[in-house]
């Protein structure tokens, strides 16, 4: 009887509460065998919680989970693994000081007489990585590799375990357009082989391209399930947000003003490869323009920003901010001279996760007279008042307001907090590195509006993005980076994603003058 079940996994009437919030309120999802089922919802809609319940990381208070029509209990990830459920998490669960290989086999080691048989594992991993085009260096340590490669390690981890039910939690957020296409193909192939895939995403285009059906969550509630062949992006986004959303950012034409950021022959070393990650790069960013650094992950964008923000010392070159030489300035001096930085890794750099939201909102300003006395005491009242103002103004949602621990907030609201903090400093130059990574349509719309508002009020914006769609829609000027060099400069109106793609992949290049 059980074998006759049409569904690989069913989650029926799942309810999961956290202090102050109902993360899942009677949610039902049925995953058919061999289908790609998308799970769509805003940040904090409860997608990750639902998947954590399925994966055994949380226990639901109500509801049942069925596999092949039979009720099952999943108490921990091992149970999930035994049932053939594998998951690539939104925030990677990797051991930083282990190699890629060690991470993949961790918990599923091939052992002979108590010794690890790494060669067997290595062979399988190399096969898998070649088969699916998931390029990794099995011997590189996680702490040394890019976010993109960490993601690929996570995917390989799941493939290595031959799981039947595959959960992808926002898998495309860090991949390049070409890699996304590849991944989509992989997912289709896997589904064809009979594997069932739950695909968590808020990228409507991807869902339309790859999924068979789509279930939508909004604020913890189940909204409905639709067949992709019978729907469109507008309907999906309406289901997700509850209102119409502007999918493409619009902005007025604007003549850029004087130079704010001037970079001359900058070279930045890379800790990982012991060579120069950024080679002799020169460019300007002017008042009232958004300059976008486009490129495939790992082509020196991270190091470029480290060099500009002072997180890394540059080896040669010169950086000027509003006419002031900041080449050798400290991070704090750059910040107080009018540079704001929305970092690539919001957990590592952007937030002190165990501090309250209020403390995080003053992370760049706590030392100013507004928030501390001459004797070095923090003005807690002022800090809280300021936090309340930002929470209100930037619509940062959290369970307990200013005193909420940053760790307990959803990814989108963490990012909103960082953006509020950096923009409210009223910077001359705003450096934003993948500010929309892992965020949903509503939050992306919001962040794009904020970036454009910065530009419109005459500030300079330097945006580093891996999303071509984002690059094309909000930038005034595009610089393409390839292997640490700027290989092309474009105006979005006079180019196409295809042309940019050629430069990003290194197939073409042209000389760029600063």
């Amino acid at each position: 009887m059980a074998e006759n079940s049409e569904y690989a996994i069913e989650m029926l009437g799942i309810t999961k509460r956290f202090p102050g919030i109902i993360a899942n309120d009677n949610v039902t999802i049925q995953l058919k065998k061999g289908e790609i089922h998308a799970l769509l919802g805003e940040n904090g809609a409860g997608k990750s919680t639902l998947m954590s319940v399925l994966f055994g990381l949380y226990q639901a208070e109500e509801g049942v989970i069925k596999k092949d029509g039979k009720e099952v209990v999943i108490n921990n990830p091992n149970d999930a693994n035994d049932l053939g459920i594998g998951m690539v998490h939104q925030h990677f669960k990797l051991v930083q000081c282990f190699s890629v290989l060690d991470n993949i086999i961790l918990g599923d080691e091939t052992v002979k007489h108590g010794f690890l048989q790494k060669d067997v594992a290595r062979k399988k991993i190399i096969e898998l990585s070649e088969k699916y085009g998931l390029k990794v260096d099995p011997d590189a340590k996680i702490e040394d590799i890019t976010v993109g490669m960490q993601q690929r390690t996570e995917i390989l981890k799941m493939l290595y375990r031959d799981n039947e039910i595959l959960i992808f939690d926002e898998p495309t957020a860090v991949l390049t357009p070409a890699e996304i296409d590849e991944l989509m193909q992989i997912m289709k192939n896997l589904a064809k082989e009979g594997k069932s895939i739950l695909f968590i995403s808020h990228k409507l285009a991807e869902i339309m391209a790859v999924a068979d059906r789509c279930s939508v969550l909004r604020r913890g509630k189940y909204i409905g399930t639709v067949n992709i062949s019978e729907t469109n992006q507008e309907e999906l986004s309406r289901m997700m947000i509850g209102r119409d959303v502007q999918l493409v950012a619009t902005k007025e034409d604007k003549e850029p003003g004087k130079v704010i950021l001037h970079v001359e022959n900058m070279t930045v070393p890379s800790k990982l490869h012991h060579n120069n990650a950024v080679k002799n790069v020169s460019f300007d960013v002017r008042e009232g323009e958004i300059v976008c650094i486009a490129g495939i992950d790992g082509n020196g964008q991270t190091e470029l920003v480290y060099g500009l923000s002072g997180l890394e010392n540059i080896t040669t070159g010169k950086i000027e901010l509003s006419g002031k030489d900041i080449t050798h300035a400290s991070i704090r001096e750059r910040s107080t001279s009018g540079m704001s930085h929305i970092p690539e890794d919001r957990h590592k750099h952007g937030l002190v996760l165990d501090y309250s939201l209020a403390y995080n909102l003053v992370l760049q300003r706590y030392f100013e007279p507004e928030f501390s006395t001459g004797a070095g005491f923090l003005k807690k009242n002022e800090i809280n008042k300021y936090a309340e103002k930002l929470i209100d103004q930037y619509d940062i949602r959290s369970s307990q307001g200013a005193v909420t621990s940053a760790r307990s907030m959803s990814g989108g609201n963490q990012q909103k907090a960082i953006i509020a903090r950096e923009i409210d400093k009223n910077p001359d130059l705003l450096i934003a590195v993948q500010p929309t990574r892992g965020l949903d349509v509503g939050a992306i719309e919001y962040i794009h509006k904020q970036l454009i508002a910065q530009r419109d009020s005459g500030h300079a914006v330097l945006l580093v993005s891996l999303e071509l769609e984002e690059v094309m829609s909000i930038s005034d000027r595009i610089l393409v980076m390839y292997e640490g060099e700027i290989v092309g400069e474009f105006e979005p109106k006079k180019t196409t994603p295809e042309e940019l793609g050629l430069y990003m992949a290194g197939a073409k290049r042209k000389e760029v003058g600063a």
Partner: protein
Amino acid sequence: MSAENKSTEKVSFFARPAVQSILASLLCIVFGLLIGYIALLFINAKGATEAIITIIKNYFTYPTKAAALKYFGNTLVKAAPLLMCALSIQFCYQAGLFNIGAAGQYVAGAGASLFCALKLGLPWYVCLIAAFVAGGIFGIVVGILKAYLNVNEVISGIMLNWIGLYTVNMLLSGVKETASPYTVTLASTNKAAVLPSIGLEKFFSNNKYVTIAIPLAILIAVLLKVILSMTVFGYEIRATGIAKDAAKYSGMKEKRNIILTLFIGGALAGLGAAFLYLTGYEQWSVTQSSVPGMGFNGIAATFLGGLDPIGTIFASYFIQHITSGGSYLDKNIYPSQISDFISAIIIYLCGFVLFFKYFLNSRIRNKKNNAEGGNK
């Protein structure tokens, strides 16, 4: 209705982190004593009950109130340096540094204060400053190695403990008694170097070792609490401790903070030594070949105190209380180290504090869910 209100109040009371920390620490103490008792039973079952009571009673074993007060004073005299070492470790721990070098910084403080007092004949406040600076310098060495060369502070701290011990032994061999390895007595050599009592001795049956060291140590604990939770410096120290990269990103001077933290930590431990040796309660033995345990016991006190300066005041007192209590045991039957053993067990159990909190929270959650289910 009223019963329901009461139960929700009770839940929120136990859900408070501070209450949970205190409960967990108390639980550790109870289990530690229990296991200590079992150990006593194994050594000699007959006198075990009496022995454990002796340890817990400490100075209350004296029949007269005056004597009890006097020995209560002695426990406090030794609790003050322990508290300082615990605060040293704790302060550094907030910045993500494990200052096991507190033991060596304590030794440096002892050496500097006794040298200034006995050899140079300086008054007590100069000796205190000397101890502060000497301990601080030991901390700075560890800090510089950590900040600029990424040398693990545990390794460099332990090495410095030994360097400190033998340097101080050499330094103080010029002021030792001719017939013994101990330094000359403080009161007879330089009365001006003895810490003033400001009348405190009267409360402890004229125990002349009770000095301003005790209120000063408590005051410093409160001061640290204020610094950590209310100042810009505390904000930076804690941010550096829990999120090094975010601290760097926000432009905090990470290296400077590491060095400064270890300087303050070292200075606290050094000051702790002066708080003991400048009372004249103990003399330094220039032939000792092991680092005084005070710095290590400080680790115990700080963890038992729930990593909170105020909690550490009580924890330091408790550890010193049972250590002093242990010295009243019949040495022919029980080793006096039984108190150290019990402290060690307690520290081990402190590792279960997290587990205990988790257990308590899951109980609270279940209760709440049941209550909600019942309401439906």
